[in-house]
């Protein structure tokens, strides 16, 4: 029994190390390829560290497609998406958790029923709508919907608001605060962790979104990083070192955001059971 107890942690660490190493292999391969010279790309055996480290691949990758322009476009869309999402989700979340009104239950049920709806069901008609407004080839179709609430994030914020004591709102209302002031000055500041989670998830979603920019942005000047990267593949299909350098550059900000805000990520996913 004692021997067994001593060996259990070793087995556990062994299994975890082996499996996490396996998960890291593709990422290591991406980094390794991104610094290989053209001549060492196609070899019959696996080479992890090339004989010459070719940092120039990154420079080439960033200059053969308008990386900074696409970065700017992506950041603009992501920032507006985050602002719109946070504001348009706080109000309904407050109404679904801290207020009492007729129709609350039925609208909440309707909102929950839309949680699993794939974008493919609605995208055709939404596309035709935005096209008739003349919004194709602008950022508006990617930004404007964010200002009209998101069922996931409203649900997430509501769950958080339910955990705050009821007396907080009662006292504020007795002191003559309006519901809006109560939300603005008492509830919202207390919801900061949940708001950060919503901001983070909506930022990542906007950064990595592929389908919407693909549908709405035709002009190469307006591409986001995700769509720009896809065209890069078409033009440099065999230059794997450049492709991997470009993929690394687009991935790096997401990894940094994740490493900084790891706890927020993990708790957010666990809280709503949502797929990130």
């Amino acid at each position, binding site marked *: 029994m004692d021997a067994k107890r001593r060996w259990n*942690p070793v087995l556990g660490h062994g299994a*975890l*190390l082996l*499996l*996490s190493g396996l*998960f890291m292999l*593709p*990422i290591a*391969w*991406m980094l390794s*390829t991104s610094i290989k010279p053209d001549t060492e790309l*196609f070899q*019959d*055996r*696996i080479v992890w560290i090339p004989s010459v480290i070719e940092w120039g691949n990154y420079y080439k990758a960033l200059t053969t497609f308008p990386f900074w322009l696409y970065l700017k476009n992506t950041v603009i869309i992501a920032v507006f998406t985050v602002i719109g999402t946070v504001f*348009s*989700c706080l*109000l*309904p979340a407050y*109404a679904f958790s801290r*207020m009492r*009104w*007729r*129709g609350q239950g039925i*609208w909440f049920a309707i909102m929950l029923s839309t949680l*699993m709806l*794939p974008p*493919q*069901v*609605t*995208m*055709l*008609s*939404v*596309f*035709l*709508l935005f096209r008739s407004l003349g919004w194709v080839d602008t950022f508006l179709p990617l930004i404007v*919907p964010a200002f*009209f*609430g998101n069922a996931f994030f*409203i649900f997430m914020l509501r769950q958080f608001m339910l955990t705050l004591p009821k007396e907080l709102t009662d006292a504020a209302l007795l002191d003559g605060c309006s519901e809006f002031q109560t939300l603005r000055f008492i509830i919202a500041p207390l919801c900061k962790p949940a708001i950060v989670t919503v901001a983070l998830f909506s930022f990542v979603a906007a*950064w*990595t979104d*592929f*389908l919407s920019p*693909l549908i709405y942005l035709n002009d190469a000047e307006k591409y986001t990083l*995700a*769509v720009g*990267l*896809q065209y890069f593949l078409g033009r440099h299909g065999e230059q794997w070192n450049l*492709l*991997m350098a470009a*993929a690394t550059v*687009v991935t790096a900000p997401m990894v940094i955001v*994740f490493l900084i805000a790891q706890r927020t990520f993990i708790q957010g*996913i*666990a809280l709503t*059971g949502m*797929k*990130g």
Partner: protein
Amino acid sequence: MRWSTWKGYLFIAPWLIGFLVFTLYPILSTLYFSFCDYRVLSEPRWVGAQNYRSLLSDSDYFWRSVFNTVFMFIGVPLSIVLGIGLALLLNLKLRGQAFYRALFYLPSVVPAVASAFLWLWVLNPQNGLAAPVNQVLNQAGSGAINWFTDPATSKWGFIVMDLWMIGSAMIIYLAALQGVPIHLYEAAKLDGASPWMMIRHVTLPHISPVILYMAIIGIIGAFQYFTQTFVMTQGGPENSTLFYSLYLFQNAFQYFRMGHASAMAWMLFLVTALATFLVWRISLRYVYYEGQA
């Protein structure tokens, strides 16, 4: 209406307007378009059930895309086993679990287009990470696996790639594991249960609603499969990765057959509605909310 009711509607207005304009109206207008011949540039023209008839009799593309999508369901049980397995390992009382958890989750933050490039290269049968395996297979005489370039294995390439991005599911299982009451394990231990028996008779029954929920999400996810196949294979080789969402997209934005695309969107809506109903029935049976409902 009472003032409190007005206020409620005022507060949910951002979402309510969004729901009416971006969800309800699209679902209804898509239903109408699905009964029309609609080429985007000309006005929609009513043709009855013709779009549905021609889709349902099209075995080369429509049924092919349904078959390919259903094939991807194989990934659902695999993802459940791997996800719970990793969650069980991460739930062991060991040092450095946050570190391992970060490593397992990291692939899930790689943007889809970047991971698409990455996997095309990793599973490149001659020069990728898959090459050494192929050398062994060749020596054994069983022939190399060509992954995305062979219709017989292309879908497996996507299944492997999906398993790599299991992060979110793993976290959800981990949260579920941590919700199992400790006293149940203690009682089982007193009764002399082995670790495997505890997993089988305590852990799994407790997290079964989560497993069921994740299975349904996985099935809907197969119908949404798009970015990877659009970037990596464009449905090929030989339509072996023509998935439901890709064919829907092609109908709408490449062939400009909005009527066909709308019919496919509406069939997808029915599948999703059924799945949502199932999840709702499950949650009625198992889940109870603390505080107000």
